[in-house]
């Protein structure tokens, strides 16, 4: 049991460390507003056309045992 707990804690710490490193590196990624033409396009948006996606996920939720982890709104615009 103790071995299992240590295993879970080690996994959680590893995940947190990885996420922290990734988050820290995010600050180095700078895309200037004038470079966002492609990112601002609707095809590059996450959760774009949410109603269409919602109908599909509604059907899948009722046919599968898992849920969550779906898209949230967001993308590359931020032009203004």
């Amino acid at each position, binding site marked *: 049991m103790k071995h299992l707990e240590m295993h879970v804690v080690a996994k959680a710490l590893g995940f947190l460390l990885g996420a922290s490193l990734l988050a820290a590196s995010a600050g180095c990624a700078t*895309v200037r507003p004038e470079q966002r033409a492609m990112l601002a*396009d609707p095809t590059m948006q996450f959760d774009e056309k949410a*109603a269409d996606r919602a109908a599909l996920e509604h059907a899948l939720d009722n046919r599968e045992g898992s849920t969550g982890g*779906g898209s949230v709104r967001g993308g590359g615009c931020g032009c203004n």
Partner: protein
Amino acid sequence: MLSRMTPSTACRSGAQLALGGVLFGLAVAFMAPSARAQVASADVNTALFVEPSTRSGLTVINPSATVAVKPSNWLTIQGGYEADIVSGASESVKGGRLSNVDIVTSATHFSDTRNAFTGGFTITRASTHLSGSYTYGTEHDYRSNAFAVSAGTDFFQKNTQIELSYGRGFDKVCTTAFTASDSPSTRLALDNSQGCFTNDEKRASRDISLDNFQVGWTQTWTPVFATQMVLSAALQNGFLGNPYRSVVIASAGDQALENHPENRARGAIGLRGKYYVRGLQTALSAGVRLYRDTWDIFGQTYELDAERYMLPWLRVLVRARYYTQTGALFWSDDYTGGEPATGPRGQYWSGDRELSPLSSYLVGARALATREGRPGQRVLGLFLSFSGAVSFDLLKTNLRDFTLGGRAPDDTLAMLWSLGLRGEF
């Protein structure tokens, strides 16, 4: 409860309600400009889900309408209506390979309608937004009240976006009137929804509480590459089975109401990337989602899609998805046979195929046409912009350990059509 394919004897005229909701939404939208709204939008969607079968089958029509108005630059107010109009037939008794019970002829026809009404707001200030919403859903055997709040902001010259959300649901489900002291093996399933949420002493209302947490992180890395990570957690407590479904639990054919644990904690992580391929003028997207819960279901989802403009006003998306999951810890195709693999696994029993080990494939496509107006020249004389989308998806499920009295179900191929219209004023 529609997700559990509930029968109902007193079928309400769902189509009328749905049509009324859609017309109401449109009416509000058209009135919006006279309410001095600076910007308003209306979305009307209809989805049709069909799962054909020689013995059971399922059809779901899902109309929805959403209206949003912006009385000021920082405030958006939304209202929406959605319905699930369900009809078909399903087996009310689940038995497995060893069950000496006629499962197939237990399929009963049913129809029901879920109506859901939503209201909410979004406040936007500089790079931060805050949203709140309330949804009320009702059907013959189920009531739901749900609150949700979310907040988001961006950092690093808008290259990083964080979104936090929390939702709380207070639901009620109708069951037969058993008490906590009654042995689960003596509890009976509902055979119809008559008397639900009334003083009928043969019916009981049971609570379900739902908590949902979500964190989303969207990151742009280059002018053509962005990623998104979403962490979700959910806690469910209450009656989590299907009140209509019985399970054969003894070789003599004894049946009892499906008996699931009363608590379930669920977690998922989704990772997605979008990359714009200049040479192909196409946006490619790939995603993976891992899921785990305390019922020991481990799910994996892999998705790919590609979208490009075929014409300046028309874009087309194609998508593919693969999903696989393990069964719940207490899942067994047959609870009468002694030891696994054909016997009970603990104190619970289920006839829900969503809890069995399965995999599925999905392929689909969507076409979306958009027409933008110009200053002083609105589309159809009314809209600043107008768009219409149509999509089709095909879902094939492979049930690895689920039978109905030893026979594999034939309702494993599903089709989903969707039509959506959006206008901005």
